[in-house]
Each structure stands twice: as C-alpha cells, then as structure tokens.
C-alpha cells in the first residue's frame, strides 16, 4: 500500500501532529490550573501559562526519575555489577513494556480515527500517528529520560568497577530494545483486544487469564516467603546487631539472596539483559554481540508488527461478529450481572441499563474482561496469603494484623480495580452529552450516580467475595479472623466505590476525545488522591482502634470483638452518611454539557 507524500512531508506531519496532540493533552489535563495561571500572570506573558505547566510536568518527571535513580544507587551497591546491571536493564525494559500497555488503549481505537483514515496515509502510518500522538511526553520520559537518569545513577555507583563508555553503549542497546518492546507490547495487546472485541472472549482469553493469574499467585507467594523469612531471621537474632533502621536495611540484601536463582536466570550470558550487563561490567565481546543481536531482533519484531498496525481500523469490529452465537464470556458476564442486578435492585431499571451498557461496551471490556470477575491482582493477594499461611497459624496476633493490613489493602484494591478499569462506563461524567437525554427523561445526576454506584458495587462485589473466601481458605483463618476479614471487606465495599465516583460528580468533564481520558483531568486526579489519603488515614485509625480494642491479641476470646466491631460500624456509618450527603450536594451543581 502506497502512502501519498514524501518522507519529508511525513516527518513534518508527524512532528506537527505530535506537538499539537501533546499540547492539547496538557491543556485538557490542566484546565483549571491554566485558568488560574492566566489570571495570576500578567497579560504580557501571553502563552506562558502552558509553558509553566509544561515545566512543572517536566520537573515532576525528572524528580520521579531521580528518585528511581537514587533507589538504583542503593541496589547497585548490594550485588555484583553484572547482577546489579541486569536488574537495572530488566527494570528499564519493564518500564518500556508498561509504556506499550498504556499506549494500546489509544492505538486500538484512536479518537480521531475517522480523520486519520480519511487523509492519504496508509493504516500503518495512521497507527504510528496514534501511537506517538497519545501522550508523547510520557513516552519521552519513560523511553528516554528514565534510561538516561538511570545511566547516570549507575555511572556514579559503579565508577571504577565498569567501563563507562561500555556502560553507555549497553544502555543505548537496552533503551533501543525498550522502544521496540513498547511497540511489540502495544501491538500484541492490541491484537488480543481486537480479537476479543470482534469475536468475543473465549478459550484463548481464558488461558491467558489463567497463566497471568498463576504468575501473579506465584509472585505473591514468593514475596510473602521473602518477607516472612526475613522477619524470622531478624526475630531469631542472626542480624540483631545494630539499630532497627539497620535491621530494616538488611531486607533488600535478604530479598536478593532469596531470589538469587531467579537473578541468575535473569543475568544468564544469553539473556538480553545479562549479555548487555556482561559487556558493560566485563567488556565481554560476546556479550556485546548478543546484546546487539537481541536489540536487532526486538527492533525487527517491532517493525514487522507495526507494519500490520491499524489493519483493523477500516474493517470494523462488528462486521464479522454474530451476536448471541454462544461461547462469548462477555455475553455470559452480561447475562449474569444483569440478572443479579434485577434480583438485588428490584425495580431499578437504571442499574440494569448501566450493567448492560458496561458489558456491551466492547472498547473497554475487551481491554480487561477479567476485571469483571477479578484480575491477576486478586491472585497476587491470594498468593501473598498462601505464602504467609505457615506463619499465621502459629500466632493469633500475626493473623489479626495480617487480616487487617493485607486483607484491608487487598479488599480495597479488589473493589477499586473494576472502577478504574471501567471508568469510561461507571463515571458519571462519562455519559458525556447523553446527560441531556437523562435530564429530559427526568433522571438527575444523583439518580445516575446512585445507579452507577450500585452497578459498580455489584461488579466489584463478585471478585471481593472470591478474594475473601480464597484468603480465608488458603490462610486457614479462625472464625473470629474470618469475621474480621469480612468486616474489613464490607467496609471497603461500602467506602471505596463512593470515593471512586465522587470526583466525576465534583468536577465533571463531559467532553472526552477518548474513553481513556475519563477521570484523567488534573483536578479529578487531585480529588481522587485526596480521597485516597483520607481513606488510608481512616483505615489506619480503624487498625489502631481494633488493635487497642484487644481484638487481635493472643488468647482474647472472640466476644471481645463485638464492641470494637460495633464502634467501627458506627464510625463507618457516619463516614458513609457524610459521603452520601456530599454526593447529593455535588449532584445539584452538575450542569449539562455544552
């Protein structure tokens, strides 16, 4: 397929597109800050407010990366240069892969698809524009700034142990592989999404879910094992010398010892990171050749996959799809949730509409269908509980603290994940201009908020029940601990959905170019962070109350839990009432979109 226009035209168009899209994104995400700056800054500053925001964003990026560099600085001192550099390079590749995951949302279905398809560009070039135009600043940070800052951190901490030019050559190879890996991940995730959206989630998706869940479970179990063995080592006195701070600082070293077999695999001379690390640390020519080979192979794979990018843009995902042919897990999820909604919220058709809308919105459900029943994160928690089980049996106090800390955290993330994954359906402002239709039908913002809250809680409730049951079984908890875990889960199920939906009411943005942009506006994120901090503080307070209430002290009878749980329930009720009243007030102020 030929593209119209020469390479120079294409380059000019790409640069202009990247610039305009990043500026528009920055403006959209910082609307209120910009308005404030425009008021504060003198008129002669003209377009400066945007520059100020851009400078702040860049400053934040550099600070965050410097923090990463500082962490690496410590890590690089613990292990041999080869191991340390292998870990560093693997981290860079992991960050690049996460970049690919984040761009997939946009490249799968670009908001300006119609415009990109109409101009004289091939699908491949339209795909490239969509890839680079999503969040160019983020790509620049993760694929360029992070490797450079990490390189400086490694240069300082390994000075004298490695040849610096070799280190920078290795870094360049890893960074190139990282860029290519981002494209590979983007395309693979995109291909899986397209398949699920057009043909439904079937056996292949189930197998991928099983594999990622098993991996998450194993990781959780390993993390638990490392932490517990370190705790017993510290308690056993083998490293009792020194201050608590010094004891705490022995954890990374201990963790490195525990995962040394994995590190040996990672730093294997034939692995991409091991080869690059050997070239940098030992000047191995074979290492350089292998690292270059790996980088070349990744770049080739990326080029091959990118050549097929955007093929589905013109095909239309529904074209070949025969609805209701059976075997599609997303159809099954819709039937189950709509049925549950009818039973639990009898008479509330709005809840059923929300549930059906969410399940049928393939653009979002196809990206993470298993958040409907609990994603891999849930299995990470189960793995943690499984790994911690041997230690929990011996001490009631440890089990109590585990239930409160890990159970609380796990319940919170399990409840919040569906809200984050399906924000484009669950957030009140995600309705966009459809709000006008609801208003005409006599449905206010508060009615919609309540319906979305119910729908979201129903969807979050299923994985939460699964999590609590699995944790109780694998960690072999006593009845009192199970009651406590249930109470923690219930509190999370009541509080977090409200916290997740309130920013959409407090600062609604009805115009989105892409579903991924729902909830990403600066002030919504600030509100979300604020609510998160408040939720964390309340959880901590609850923990203190429960600990001081004697609930988890060894030997205390189960009935001592009753007054403490009652007090916690009263406190929770007050918080919920406060949140509901706030939501009602905010809903009154919601205006129709322009």
């Amino acid at each position: 397929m030929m593209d119209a226009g020469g390479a120079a035209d294409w380059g000019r168009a790409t640069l202009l597109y990247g610039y305009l899209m990043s500026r528009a994104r920055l403006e959209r995400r910082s609307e209120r800050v910009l308005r404030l700056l425009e008021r504060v800054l003198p008129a002669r500053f003209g377009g400066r407010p945007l520059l100020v925001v851009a400078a702040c964003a860049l400053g934040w990026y550099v600070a965050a990366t410097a923090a990463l560099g500082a962490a690496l600085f410590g890590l690089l001192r613990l292990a041999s240069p080869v191991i340390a550099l292998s870990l560093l390079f693997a981290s860079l590749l992991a960050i690049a892969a996460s970049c690919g995951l984040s761009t997939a949302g946009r490249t799968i279905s670009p908001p300006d698809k119609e415009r990109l398809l109409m101009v004289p560009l091939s699908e491949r070039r339209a795909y490239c524009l969509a890839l680079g135009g999503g969040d160019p600043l983020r790509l620049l940070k993760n694929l360029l700034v992070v490797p450079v800052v990490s390189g400086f951190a490694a240069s300082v901490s390994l000075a004298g142990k490695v040849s610096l030019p070799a280190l920078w050559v290795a870094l360049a190879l890893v960074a190139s592989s990282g860029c290519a890996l981002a494209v590979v991940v983007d395309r693979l995730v995109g291909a899986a999404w397209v398949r699920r959206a057009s043909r439904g989630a079937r056996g292949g998706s189930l197998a991928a879910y099983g594999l990622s869940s098993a991996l998450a479970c194993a990781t959780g179990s390993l993390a638990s094992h490392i932490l517990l063995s370190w705790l017993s080592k510290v308690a056993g006195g083998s490293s009792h010398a020194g201050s608590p701070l010094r004891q705490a600082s022995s954890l990374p070293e201990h963790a490195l010892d525990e995962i040394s077999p994995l590190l040996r695999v990672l730093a294997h001379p034939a692995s991409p990171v091991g080869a690059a690390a050997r070239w940098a640390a030992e000047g191995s020519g074979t290492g350089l050749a292998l690292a270059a080979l790996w980088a070349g192979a990744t770049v080739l794979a990326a080029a091959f996959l990118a050549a097929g990018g955007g093929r589905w843009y013109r095909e239309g995902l529904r074209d070949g799809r025969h609805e209701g042919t059976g075997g599609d897990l997303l159809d099954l999820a819709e039937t189950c949730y709509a049925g549950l909604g009818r039973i639990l919220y009898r008479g509330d058709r709005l809840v059923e509409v929300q549930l059906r809308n969410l399940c049928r919105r393939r653009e979002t459900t196809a990206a993470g269908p298993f958040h409907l029943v609990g994603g891999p994160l849930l299995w990470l928690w189960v793995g943690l509980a499984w790994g911690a089980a041997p230690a929990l049996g011996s001490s009631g106090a440890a089990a109590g603290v585990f239930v409160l800390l890990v159970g609380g955290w796990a319940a919170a993330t399990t409840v919040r994940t569906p809200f984050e994954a399906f924000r484009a359906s669950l957030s009140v402002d995600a309705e966009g201009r459809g709000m006008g239709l609801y208003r005409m039908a006599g449905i206010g913002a508060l009615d919609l908020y309540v319906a979305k809250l119910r729908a979201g809680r129903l969807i979050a409730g299923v994985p939460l029940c699964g999590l609590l049951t699995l944790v109780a079984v694998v960690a072999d908890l006593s009845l009192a601990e199970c009651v406590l875990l249930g109470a923690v889960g219930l509190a999370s199920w009541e509080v977090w959905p409200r916290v997740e939906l309130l920013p959409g009411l407090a600062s609604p943005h009805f115009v989105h170019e892409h579903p991924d942009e729902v909830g990403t506006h600066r002030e919504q994120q600030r509100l979300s962070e604020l609510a998160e901090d408040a939720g964390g503080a309340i959880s901590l307070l609850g923990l203190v109350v429960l600990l001081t209430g004697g609930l988890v002290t060894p030997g205390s009878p189960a009935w001592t839990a009753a007054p403490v749980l009652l007090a916690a329930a009263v406190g929770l009720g007050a918080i919920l009432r406060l949140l509901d009243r706030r939501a009602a007030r905010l809903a009154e102020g919601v205006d129709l979109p322009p």
Partner: protein
Amino acid sequence: MTARNALLAVTGVTKRFGSDVAIDSVRFEVERGERFCLVGHNGAGKSTLLRLIAGLSYPSEGTISVLGGDPAREPSVRRRIGYLSDQPHLYDKLTGGEHLRLHAALYGLSPEEASVRSEGLLEDLGLNPCPRVERLSFGTRKKLALVLALVHEPDLLVLDEPTNGLDPASAEVVEDLLRRHVGAVVLSTHSLEFAAAFASEIGVMRNGRITSRGVRRGDDG
C-alpha cells in the same frame, strides 16, 4: 462494466454488520461535474454508503472505484476525495487555523499553499480561524469541517448532510460553494427542497437499496 468517464463507480456494493445488511447491492456512477444527492429515511444506509465511498470501511461485496482506484486501499486515491461526516471530528483544544495547518501537513501541502487556498474559503463562510473549536457552535464546526474537506481541492466531494445545523443564510453560502466545485459531489440530505434545487441526479435509498433515481433536466451544471 463502468462508464469510461465515471469519476465514481459503485458496482454491486453490499455491506453487512454481522447478520444485518446495511447496504444491499447498490450500483451507480457519477461523472465529473455531476451532483448526486442521496435522500431517504433514517437508517436507510446513506451514511454507511458515503463512508464506503470515502474509503472509511471496506464493502463486504462489490467494488468502489474513484478515478479508477480503490479509496479504502490506496491513499493516493483518498487524496482526491474530500469527506464531511454528519458529526465531523475536530480537536476541541485546537483552533481552526491549527486544524488547517495539520490538515495541510497530512495532505503534503505547504503551509503557504494551504493558507492561500483556505483564505477564500474562510472568507466565504465567514469563519475566524483563531478561536478554539471548543468555543464554536455546531454550525460553525460544520463549516470548519467543510473547509477542511475542500482545502486540498479534491476531485470528489463526499458530504453527509452538509447543511444540517446551518442557518438558512449559511446553507445558501454552502450550496453556492458546492455549485462552484469543478469535480463531482455526492451528498446525503433530508431536505428534499435542497436536493431538488442542487442535485443533477437524486437517488432514493430505502433499506440499504437505491429504490429509485431521477435525473434533473435543464440543470445549470
């Protein structure tokens, strides 16, 4: 067989979405200088047919040829088409001028060339290129999208309800602008009055088929 001079040839085109047939064996040709109007009720398939002609999706059966090429598969063919959808996509945070710059770059036009070409169009339609799109009314957005469809001087204009949302005076200006277009125009409209006054040929669509066609006699074009 297609006519030798046909700028657009739609030959036995069918479009299916799953088991639904949106366009059913449609066949027609449009020559240079012709203005072909599609009329029909909502859901008749007008927009889907126009999207197929613009190359935005592939037909399930049949072929669409613009100047002898396939618009869905050949970018160089799409360069010769100007398309306006019923809900045109514009970037909210960009100004009209920035849209024109980006459009020119994507079509390989130099900024100067784009500026000269767009000046007259902006003036005719009474558009100011400075405000951001988010501050424009629906009608003004539609006019800006029309400028974008015209600025690269396409041979074939494919317009989905171009006068929808425009005030009568603006609709008249748009009609005048389209009459001056030297290539061919294929458009859909719900205004039979507009179709009768503007079209050289009218096709009535129903359930994905063109059920009747009429050529206007004594047309000034």
